[in-house]
């Protein structure tokens, strides 16, 4: 199935919020890197993904720094508490120098827009996100990662390595194009956080969320 067919299929099945594991499968198809799944060794992240519980940490559905074996035990325990979820065990990303939020939504006035700014806990702390019309071409997103207070974080504060802002700009553009092409099916899409590594070393999407558009809204708004 193409990504669009997948979205249509989900919408037809009555899904509203698409959980992390499925959202990551989809964004991987449009060229966005995600962590390795079910690694044989190394430190892992264990999660249980469930459409009804998108804020996993609030329900104890995320555990960090486990061995592959301990991760399996952890997801089994989570699945007992929240039946119907999908277990997700991934390599834990430990080489990032910046965490970013990248999201798209339909604005009531301007239609599809894309937002990018400092992610993780900084989302709550500072009001530094940059916003543009979606789709945003690579030239626009390159300017975006060089604008506002977030640009200083990416360039490396107090001797820190500068982040791979080129890879980040590429991700922002890709997600904005995908969203704008499918804004009849998606009302919000968000990657938070994007773990951005040092310059030249790329990035991975550590979490992702898709909110599907209600079917009625789709028919009313797209002419």
């Amino acid at each position: 199935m193409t990504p669009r067919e997948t979205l249509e299929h989900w919408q037809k099945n009555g899904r509203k919020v698409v959980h992390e594991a499925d959202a990551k499968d989809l964004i991987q198809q449009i060229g966005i890197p995600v962590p390795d799944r079910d690694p044989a060794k190394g430190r892992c992240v264990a999660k249980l993904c469930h459409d009804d519980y998108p804020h996993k940490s609030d329900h104890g559905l995320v555990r960090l720094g486990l061995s592959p074996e301990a991760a399996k035990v952890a997801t089994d325990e989570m699945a007992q508490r929240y039946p119907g979820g999908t277990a997700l065990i991934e390599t834990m990303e430990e080489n990032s120098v910046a965490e970013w939020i990248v999201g798209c939504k339909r604005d009531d006035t301007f239609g599809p827009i894309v937002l990018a700014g400092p992610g993780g806990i900084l989302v709550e702390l500072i009001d530094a996100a940059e916003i543009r019309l979606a789709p945003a071409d690579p030239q626009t997103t390159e300017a975006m990662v060089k604008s506002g207070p977030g640009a200083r974080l990416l360039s490396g504060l107090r001797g820190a390595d500068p982040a791979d802002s080129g890879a980040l700009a590429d991700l922002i553009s890709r997600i904005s194009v995908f969203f704008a092409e499918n804004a009849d099916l998606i009302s919000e899409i968000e990657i938070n956080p994007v773990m951005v590594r040092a310059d030249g070393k790329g990035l991975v999407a550590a979490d992702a969320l898709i909110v599907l558009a209600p079917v009625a809204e789709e028919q009313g708004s797209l002419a």
Partner: protein
Amino acid sequence: MANSNANQPGDGRPSRAEALDVLFNPRSIAVVGASRTKGKLGQAVLALLKKNGYGGKIIPVNPSGGEIEGLQAVRSLDEIEGAVDVVVLATPVGIALDALEACKALDVKMVVGVTSGFSEAGDDGHENEARLRRIMHDAPFYLIGPNCEGVVKPSADLQLTFSPMFDGLRPGPVAMISQSGALAGLMALRLGERGVGINAIVSSGNETDLTAADLLDYLGNDPETRVVLCYVEELREGRRFVEAARRLTDAGKHVVAVKGGRSRAGSRAVQSHTGAMAGDDRVISAIFRETGVIRARESVAAVDAVTALAAGRKPAGKRVGIISVTGGLGVEMTDLAESAGFEVPVLAETTQTALSQYVPFYGSVTNPVDLTGVVLANPTYVGRCLEAVAADPGVDIAIAIVTFVPDQLFIEALAEAYEKTDKPVLIIWTGSARSDASDEAFRERAVPVYDSPARAASGLAALMAMQGEVA
């Protein structure tokens, strides 16, 4: 005019651009509700049309017929023989809707609905709104409004409005689109007082048919337009609006917009951080900035910005040279300029030497230049000092500050200095001694004049946006 104004498929109307061309240069206008009774909308519309010298045919429409304002009235629209370019509806809402319906049988290009009582009237206007939409559904013409103050085009001596706020405007580079008629009047009057020329003004009202996006596209394409000033409360076609704005700004023109009110849809539940972070006001600021729209926080600041942009002088950089007849105002202007991201650099030595001829030892020839009150003894000195600062290669924008000089000669000296440079110059005149007669020297040259450093700073900020650095 522009092919981007093409219609929806299946629309039997002429193109929007063709209809708007007719609106701004009509051969004939019918005023429905024309009246002899002072205080009625139709009386005011007819009187203002005549008073401002409109040269086309005016047809008053009044059920009792006879002569109104010296013109032969018809009893109803269907008595009109031949085409009528524009019909103005200036009656109570029921009669206006009947007249709108009657327009369908005539050869009409554009209707201007001054009448109120539609969606803006809440539940009471609901039925009227529904009937309005039914009539417009297959109408062969376009509608401005309803619930608007009308249309003004100074170069065509055209005042289709009941408001006296648009009297005596001179033709020029500024187009205005306002969803509020009162704010259009406020801004027009103040621009007129400063001599800023107006290309066209449209009070767009409820925008049942033609929207701010349609009008921005049309007026922006007009070669006479340099700046478009917009007051909007609800951008119904926001994407088209900013796309039109981007075309204008790419072409070197400017859009200054005031966005009033908060969107009612803003409270919709969101699931993601993105939804919560991208609140309505932040999105508007960001997308306006992206598309080159200069956002002013309120209407007077917008007028201040437009005043600077209308002069059409583009600064090469952000270095400001300030001369002042008083130290305090020079300091305040310097503070405001620097906090807005401008530099107030030390002037070149040759400039300082030139200034020393006029400035006493207790003044200052650095920057801001304190001319002291001594220069007031000789009108030509102020002009020479402004010329010297504007000619400094290290200055991109010159500001001259004057307080209470009552002398016409000072104004002429400054106006002449303004003409001797092609750099942007802003004048700050804090006193009330300027008479209409003496001000004319500024107005006829469209010199940007402000009454305080803070308001000049709004003009400065707009000039910065002209460089594409800040919006």
